[in-house]
């Protein structure tokens, strides 16, 4: 501090060199900011150009691609239909939300309404750690623990569980996205004005009644936004699903059978030996484009709902 205080440069009026460096810094920072925009354009450009390329090479139309019930890139007459992959993705995603939403939401309620500050400051980071564990670890956990456990439990009632199955993928992805639901919902619940709660208590309501009849309805839009965000995250999840759910693209109601998600398909094709420029290899980008558009739509919807919620209360 003292060194800087006696620094004679500090008292110099900015000269030409300073003005130049101001300029250079400005240009650099502007370029850095532009990188973020270029990235978005890059993603959109790469995916759409290569997808068009795919339709040309594979001699298929977008309509066929979106409505065909089969995907057999390696067959003699290759068929590309994304529906089995979309089905697989949604089975896993909806299953994971069935696990994450109740647990995440009740944890958020506990942390924001019931927990004492000390308990909260301990439990909240613990829950958030769940999101920090690399996804490959969850994939391994599915193989090591969840699938054998499901096999045993379902064996008791005579249901067959395959080595790769959608249910075990849904369980681990659900665990992974619990913090997405709980953290965002907790923020939303805390943002509900205290006056609303106090009004409830002053009328003699219990905590349960205040939470379920006042706080949750008031925060409903924000909670929806957090669920949508978690949903979008689950759709994009890759490694856990690849390891747990396998690589069998099929539309079936059996959640204990193997499915292939969009992300798993992308990994399978990259890991395979399809030559660059072939229809199979280009189908990566078409599937990637659909994945990108779905997650983008969900993220935008979530952001829009959240900003409306903030306008209302915060």
């Amino acid at each position, binding site marked *: *501090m*003292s060194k*800087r*205080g*006696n620094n004679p440069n500090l008292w110099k009026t*900015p000269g030409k060199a*300073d003005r130049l460096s101001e300029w250079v810094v400005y240009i*650099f*920072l*502007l370029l*850095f*900011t532009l*990188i*973020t*925009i270029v*990235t978005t354009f*890059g*993603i959109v450009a*790469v*995916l759409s150009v*290569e997808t068009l390329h795919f339709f040309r090479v594979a001699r298929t139309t977008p309509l066929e691609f979106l409505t065909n019930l089969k995907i057999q890139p390696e067959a003699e007459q290759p068929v590309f239909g994304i529906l089995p992959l979309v089905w697989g993705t949604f089975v896993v995603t909806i299953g994971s939300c069935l696990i994450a939403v109740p*647990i*995440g939401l*009740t944890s958020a309620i*506990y*942390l924001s309404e019931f927990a004492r500050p000390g308990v909260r400051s301990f*439990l909240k980071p613990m*829950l958030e750690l*769940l999101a920090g564990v*690399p*996804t*490959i*670890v969850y*994939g*391994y*956990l599915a193989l*090591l623990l969840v699938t054998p456990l499901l096999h045993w439990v379902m064996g008791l009632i005579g249901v067959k569980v395959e080595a790769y199955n959608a249910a075990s993928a849904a369980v681990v992805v659900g*665990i992974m996205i*619990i913090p997405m639901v709980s953290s965002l919902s907790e923020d939303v619940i805390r943002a509900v004005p205290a006056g609303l709660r106090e009004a409830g208590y002053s*009328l003699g309501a219990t905590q349960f*009644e205040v*939470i379920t*009849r006042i706080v949750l309805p008031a925060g409903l839009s924000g909670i929806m936004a957090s669920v949508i*965000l978690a949903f979008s*995250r689950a759709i*994009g*999840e*890759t*490694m856990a699903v690849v*390891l747990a759910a396998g690589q069998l693209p099929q539309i079936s109601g059996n959640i204990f059978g193997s499915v292939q998600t969009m*992300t798993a398909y992308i*990994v399978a094709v*990259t*890991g395979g030996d399809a030559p660059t420029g072939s229809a199979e290899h280009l189908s*990566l980008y078409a599937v*990637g484009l659909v*994945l990108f558009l779905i*997650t*983008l739509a969900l993220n935008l919807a979530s*952001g829009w709902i959240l900003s409306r919620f903030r306008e209302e209360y915060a």
Partner: protein
Amino acid sequence: MNNPGFDMATGFEKSPVYSLRRRKRERRNRIFRIVCLGSTMLGVFFLLTVMVAVLFRVIFPANDTRETMVSASQRLQQLADFFGRLLNNGPGIDPTEVGYKVGLAGTLWLLFFVVLLAVPVAVGAAVFLEEYCNDGKIRSIIQTNISNLAGVPSIVYGLLGLAIFQRGFGYSRLALGPCLLAGALTLSLLILPVILIATQEALRAIPKSMRYAALALGATRWQLIRDHLLPAAMPGILTGSILGISRAIGETAPLLMVGAAASLLKPPRGPFSRYTALPVEIYFNAKEPDPAYSTVAAGGILILLALLLCLNFSAITIRNRHRAKHSPKQARPANNI
């Protein structure tokens, strides 16, 4: 129809809140509280399960023949050998001999380049958005763009890296091929929004008065940023960077796309050599049906988690030390001018 919340006789709303069955309502409240606590604990339980399951697999390997009972000290010696092997050996055919030396080296190389590439760009962009960009409309467009980038699935970044960095968009002269730098660039783009958003929040938390004071004394904008804003925002920047880097370390899918090798005999020598990474090697080991590989994968996961833990601890330490060093000074009047 018959609405229980509405009193037909008086026309007033008869909310159940007003009914005075106090004991019943309080019992319901207690049950609800226990349910909420239970589900929070369930979340914590899942976290512990992840750790315990992996540890369990390392301590009790799948290929363990239970006939030879070993003492605790022998077992510890075996575990030490196991981790020594994992850290010193490269890939191989024998699951009792393979290790993660190459992948670990690759991950550290990636880490180095990602820090070099992502942190300056993210911090610079955040400074631009917070300190230079005055146009509200442009800013809000860029801001929306960034929060959307943060939500793009990592595998889509992998596709981007595959098409642009690895293949140069079809121009072979621009193509990097499946090399370390292509992986590092892809991961950098992936974690750019994470660091950027954290830096923005740190800059926003600095009081306006600091900016006014510096500018009033004749500092230029860059002097203000370099000498005052960046040092004050440093804890936030560091925390954000380490969060981003932790994410980059654990990412597997984008690296699979940009050519991380399934097994590589030698660690990478520079940015243009072929590479693999720790999580990629874990993935290929976990995929093997042979249970002996399962133990190897568990060992790799423990190494990965240890690496992440070290990073996070250093983040917390740096932040605390920085806070201790810098916060009291702000309150003390300068006596040397």
